[in-house]
């Protein structure tokens, strides 16, 4: 770790020490939950009531307040997962391994939500539930990438090997995602023509944009809550034999 300045490296190792992480998570979770609920409440209210009706799509466009942030999260979480995977592979930090596998189901869920809402939105837009639109197709492939990670982890019995395996796979995936995305876009423009481009509006009214950004931040908080909660459980499971878990359990009972 010579190329990382010592204070930063110390900080990471302290943060990544399981007992410290556990305590910190317990302290943070209530606050994060409060912030998430406030943001979500405002985002939904602003998105569903305050934002003006679209002159072309009527009220059906309002699904973007779920669809777009979910689609953003689906990619964002994959990048977070691959980063955690790289950290886990290089520095052998247990917590990073845990973050990888706890990210996958959350990311897969967001991808699934993005697909379902995209398809729901497609019905009034295109008159059909599914169109081989570039974004939906990319999203579908992303879902397969997530499912591959989840099922590979489930198939390998030794959980330490499984963590290494999914970290390698996540890194391979993150290199491939831009290539996949670009290739699907290429394929789409050749096959579909410009018929579906009305979905990406070139500009968006500011009153529509603010609720969208608020929802995006709310989703980020949700991700953080779900990730920390899942990581906490996984950490306890993996560290059940260690001294700090035993002491903690004794002091709680």
């Amino acid at each position: 770790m010579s190329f990382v300045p010592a204070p930063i490296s110390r900080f990471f190792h302290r943060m990544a020490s399981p007992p410290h992480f556990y305590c910190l998570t317990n302290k943070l979770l209530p606050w994060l939950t409060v912030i998430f609920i406030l943001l979500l409440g405002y985002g939904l209210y602003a998105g569903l009531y305050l934002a003006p009706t679209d002159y072309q799509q009527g009220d059906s466009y309002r699904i973007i307040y779920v669809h777009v942030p979910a689609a953003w999260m689906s990619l964002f979480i994959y990048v977070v997962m691959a980063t955690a995977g790289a950290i886990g592979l290089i520095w052998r930090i247990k917590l990073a391994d845990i973050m990888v596998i706890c990210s996958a189901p959350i990311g897969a869920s967001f991808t699934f939500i993005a697909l379902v809402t995209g398809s729901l939105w497609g019905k009034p837009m295109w008159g059909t539930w599914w169109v081989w639109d570039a974004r939906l197709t990319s999203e579908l492939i992303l879902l397969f990438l997530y499912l591959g990670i989840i099922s590979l982890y489930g198939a390998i019995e030794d959980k330490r090997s499984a963590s290494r395996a999914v970290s390698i796979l996540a890194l391979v995936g993150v290199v491939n995602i831009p290539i996949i995305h670009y290739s699907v876009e290429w394929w789409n423009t050749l096959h579909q023509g410009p018929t579906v481009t009305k979905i990406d509006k070139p500009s968006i009214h500011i009153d529509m944009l603010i609720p969208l950004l608020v929802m995006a931040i709310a989703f980020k908080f949700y991700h953080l809550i779900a990730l920390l909660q899942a990581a906490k459980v996984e950490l306890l499971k993996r560290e059940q034999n260690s001294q700090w878990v035993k002491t903690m359990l004794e002091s709680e009972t």
Partner: protein
Amino acid sequence: MISAFFAIVRRDLILAVRLRAEAVNPVFFFILVVTLFPLGIGAETKLLQTMATGIIWVSALRAAMLSLDSLFRSDFDDGSLEQLLLSPHPLTILVFAKIIAHWLVTGLPLLIVAPLLAVFLGLPQQALGTLLITLVLVTPVLSLIGSIGVALTVGLRRGGMILSLLVLPLYVPVLIFASNAVAMAGNGYAVDAQINILIAILLLSVVLAPLPAAAALKMSMS
């Protein structure tokens, strides 16, 4: 290091010759699947012609998938893989040697059979050259990317289904560019862009794929 590289290629080629029956299976599979399509969708020339590239590429992908299992399986079962890992030579190079040998055994036959089948499906004459070029560029990529998937699943008793789930999404870009190039060539368009992209993908996978494959083999060994 060079001698170790060639020793592995040589060994795997000798093995493939001794186990011919196993080595030709993917080719038969490929021919069979392509033959099933006209039976399934009807022998209408126009329809087959439009679907020819898609049929050939998807079948080639499945045939490549099927052949992947033989890449590390027997080495894993008889302990040769342990010896490979313990070699003082870089594992990436040895894995690369195995991938090359695998491609020579499973990728090359597809190059010979695919244009033949393309003719059966009524692919336009002018697309045949492009089909060959794309096959030359893409089949090594299938072996290279596939090697990562097999390396990750070789320790699993039922890794086959998971292997498809891991590898097929990663095959999407080459499928798109290759089949698009062939289709465009059939319509008489220039396909330089697609070919260049495929060359880039091939170079990228030659450089990058053996690394995670080697790391995954180490993981599978533990």
